[in-house]
């Protein structure tokens, strides 16, 4: 080992003259993570990052064999599963990791809400996080169609119709998503390029922004929470803890991927009646269920329009929470935001439950 040290130190000296390694390292070494009774929730951002990195790697691998055309998409996924060595595993990992990523992202976001981590000066971390949520849901939606099986086909058919009742831009939005009058070859290539080019670029940019802000601002402590002394240095202590959570995340991911390999339905037939049980991924169930239970018209307003309207207002509200919650920004308790958050969690869980049991 020591034989390499002279080489290492001369490489270091070479670098130091061109890139201020020491001052950057010094800067990073100063970051600490506060310790308190809610510290546990700090792991979920890191876990979300872990699953995103898994998505990048497994997605790039899938793209080697996947063929985004209406004729060959289904067949190419079948080949990935049945013929390419370990193809079934890579695909299973990509699908399971997508779901785990959405799950950890939700936990991360709601813990940030309940801990008021969005309050001054971290407003921009919240805003970039909410946009990342939309980006992640976009990944899930655009990825779902790609295998071109019956479930994927009909779920996308429904999903692309959802904007239809928006005023003015509704029809345009639908045609933009579909790329033609119906879900077909044009839709598939649109979803594919959004999935593998647009969203990854946007996500990488936003994640970098989010992480750099986190480095600059450090982790927040919930209002009125007692911190334990001393805080944990981020490097190496918290990083090791983070890595332990990544190892656990990996174990969960790999067990699910092997024990419950992701399936593939029948090839989509655009001239067949929709079978029973068409559902999107679980994280769209609250929307799916709301669209299912709302009557066609409520007080002579179109039902879908109401769902869309509420969704739009909620999204905007969600994005702007740090600016609406004035009290938290001056370190005062703001109970209503806990109530709103808890009500939303309850609604999401109820709707997911109803959709699961087909109520």
């Amino acid at each position, binding site marked *: 080992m020591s034989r390499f040290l002279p080489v290492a130190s001369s490489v270091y000296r070479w670098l130091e003259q061109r890139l201020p390694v020491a001052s950057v390292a010094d800067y990073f070494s100063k970051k600490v993570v506060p310790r308190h009774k809610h510290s546990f929730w700090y792991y979920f951002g890191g876990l979300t990052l872990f699953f995103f990195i898994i998505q990048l790697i497994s997605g790039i691998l899938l793209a080697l064999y996947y063929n985004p055309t209406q004729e060959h998409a289904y067949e190419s996924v079948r080949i990935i599963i049945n013929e390419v060595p370990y193809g079934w595993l890579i695909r299973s990992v990509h699908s399971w990791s997508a779901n785990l990523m959405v799950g950890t992202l939700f936990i991360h976001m709601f813990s940030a809400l309940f801990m008021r981590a969005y309050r001054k000066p971290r407003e921009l971390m919240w805003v970039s996080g909410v946009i990342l949520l939309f980006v992640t849901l976009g990944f899930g939606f655009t990825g779902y169609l790609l295998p071109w099986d019956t479930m994927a086909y009909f779920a996308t058919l429904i999903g692309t119709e959802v904007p239809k009742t928006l005023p003015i831009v509704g029809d345009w939005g639908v045609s933009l998503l579909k790329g033609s*009058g119906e879900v077909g070859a044009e839709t598939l290539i649109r979803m594919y390029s959004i999935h593998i080019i647009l969203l990854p670029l946007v996500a990488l940019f936003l994640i970098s922004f989010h992480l750099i802000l986190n480095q600059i601002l450090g982790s927040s402590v919930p209002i009125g929470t007692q911190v334990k002394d001393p805080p944990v240095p981020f490097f190496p202590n918290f990083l090791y803890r983070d890595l332990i959570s990544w190892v656990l995340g990996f174990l969960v991911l790999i067990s699910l991927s092997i024990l419950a390999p992701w399936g593939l339905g029948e090839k989509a037939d655009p001239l067949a009646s929709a079978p*029973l049980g068409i559902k999107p991924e679980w994280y769209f169930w609250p929307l799916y269920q709301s669209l*299912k239970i709302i009557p066609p018209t409520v007080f002579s307003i179109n039902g879908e329009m109401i769902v869309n309207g509420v969704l739009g207002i909620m999204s905007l509200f969600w994005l702007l929470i740090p600016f609406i919650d004035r009290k938290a920004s001056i370190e005062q308790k703001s109970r209503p935001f806990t109530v709103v958050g808890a009500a939303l969690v309850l609604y999401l869980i109820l709707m997911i439950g109803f959709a699961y049991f087909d109520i």
Partner: protein
Amino acid sequence: MNDLGKPVPSSPTRRDFLSRLLKFWSLVTVIPIGTAIIRYVTPVQRDVDVRESLRVASVQDIERNTAKIVRFNKEPVIIVHTRTGQFKAFSARCTHLGCIVQFKSEGTPHFICNCHGSQFDINGINIAGPAPRPLSPFKAKVDKSSIVVSRI
């Protein structure tokens, strides 16, 4: 200190002029480029030889009290051979969110949509579920033992 020495002092009027020019330039380029991109991503309706009517099946293909889905100008159309021997045709797209409907022959024959449970009677009228409108009707007539679908 860099290798370039002191910057050249710029005259305020020249900088002013240049920055105004830049703003103007951004405006005149952003608008047309934006318009072009929006037009580019908006799909155009290519006319795939739109037919007024189409021979879609022969009468023997569809037994009484059954239905068949065929393609008519990009549109999935469901043709029903009723118990009384008539042929009826409707767009097979559910008026809720576009799933393909299914014909149910048991009891009173009707159509259902499995996506969110809408139901339509044999005349395409929405009778249950979230569908807001009846299925759009097409004309189906028998011509020399084949079924011809056309717009209404």
